[in-house]
């Protein structure tokens, strides 16, 4: 199994959810984040003084998938959230040794079916 983590724009979460559901991936965990990469933040004003905001709001999405589904999910996520503009975000894949569904105690691939 693999864990696919995507750092995306917050307003793309809903599109991501729909896209994943459409390809039958039934599970997703989202955390609010802030980050920067090439997209560098910006300048804001408060009472006449400028200040740099280095971080931009992002959402961090995690999907546990069967190893066989990795490419499908990467494609799905990419298509769902891509705008072509800087800041679209990153997807990264890590290996998962084991998964447990707490309710049933199922392990491994069973646990994310």
């Amino acid at each position, binding site marked *: 199994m693999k864990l696919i983590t995507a750092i995306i724009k917050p307003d793309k979460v809903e599109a991501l959810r729909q896209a994943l559901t459409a390809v039958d991936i039934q599970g997703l965990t989202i955390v609010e984040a802030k980050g920067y990469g090439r997209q560098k933040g910006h300048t804001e004003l408060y*009472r*006449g*003084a400028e200040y740099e905001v280095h971080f931009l709001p992002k959402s961090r999405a995690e999907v546990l998938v069967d190893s066989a589904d990795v490419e499908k999910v990467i494609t799905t996520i990419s298509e769902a959230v891509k705008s072509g503009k800087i800041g679209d975000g990153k997807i990264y894949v890590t290996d998962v040794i084991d998964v447990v569904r707490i309710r049933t105690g199922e392990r491994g691939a069973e646990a994310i079916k």
Partner: protein
Amino acid sequence: MKKILAFLIPTLLVSGLASAEVSAETAFVLNTFLFVFCGILVMFMALGFAMLEAGFVRKKNTSAILLKNIALYSIAGIMFYLIGYSLMYVDVSGWIGSLGGAFYNPSSDELALLDGAENVAAIAETGYSVASDWFFQMVFCATAVSIVSGACAERIKVWPFMIFAAIMTGIIYPIFGSWTWGGGWLAEMGFSDFAGSTIVHSVGGWAAVVGCLILGPRAGKYSKDGKISPIAGANMPLACLGTFILWFGWFGFNGGSQLALGSALDAVAISIVVVNTNMAACGGVVAAIILSQLMYKKIDLSISLNGAIAGLVAITAGPDLSNHFMSVIIGAIGGILCTLAIPMLDKMKIDDVVGAISAHLIAGIWGTLAVGIFGGGDLMVQIVGILAAAALVVPLSAVGFYILKATTGLRVDEETEAVGLDKAELTTVAYPEFN
């Protein structure tokens, strides 16, 4: 018969006129009620300051600023009762009152009236009840120190601040008050400050300047290379709530300063004052909106809120103008000066958290000058009054702050500042579940 009638008719008319006037006792009731009503409105301004300041500080210092605000209003009440009113109004020598009226209470005549004495006529002649006047004066005193709490927020220790509030409301404000409203030397020179642009707002503003200078700016606000890192207030709805409450209370602040409601003249005057007060605030808001748009390409809400206050402060010295449009102008200039002062203070590294100095001191000075300019007073005397406020308040409050600094300490340590005063000096943070 006809003649008699001819005589009678004028008599009736005269009697008609007489009974067409406000009776002495009715005037007493109306005057007293005005003080009570307007005093209640001004009391509510304590909440206005509390909310405004709670909106402009960071979450981690919110409980502390709330506590300081309710504490200072309470301390003001007690100190003004113990000595302040007496120093301001009782046997004023020209430079200060006396302690002869400490623990100020109802007059013995009034107590007799309550006990059944038939001295209504004598009482009515006094014009208003003693306690109503005291109450109205006390709430003004509290206002002055509210200005300090906002400017010095997020770094001044709670206890020393409360001690300073006692000094300010028991001594500093009353002394300047005795020079002016108490009938002292500035009053005699003809200094004109209807509801206290200088007497309340600049006095508070000067103490705020001194406090900010002695405390120094908040950690991280100004870096050595001259860069300013603004620290955004946490809660704009609270700041807006506070501003509107201040505006609301200001009708009492200025309206009540007519000091009487017992005649058509007073009623007319109060109406004019209320309209001018409102118009000046409108002018301040609109000017600050336009100017912040021009200066920063976007509207700044917090500056617009300060603009309302600046407009109100500016008109406070002379809200009895007969042309309401002049109030719009005076308020608008107040709003503009305040908007310009905000970045200027930053350049001087005076870290005024809520814009109190810009809105109260700068606009207060402007308002006091405006009375001289627009013919409500002598411009030179107005300048003397403005300088006198600085000359009195700056050294006195500096002494106060330095003594506190040397004894209890004035500023929280670095770690407390980083963690926030709420956790370090109080038991509770303001938004435990939102953190």
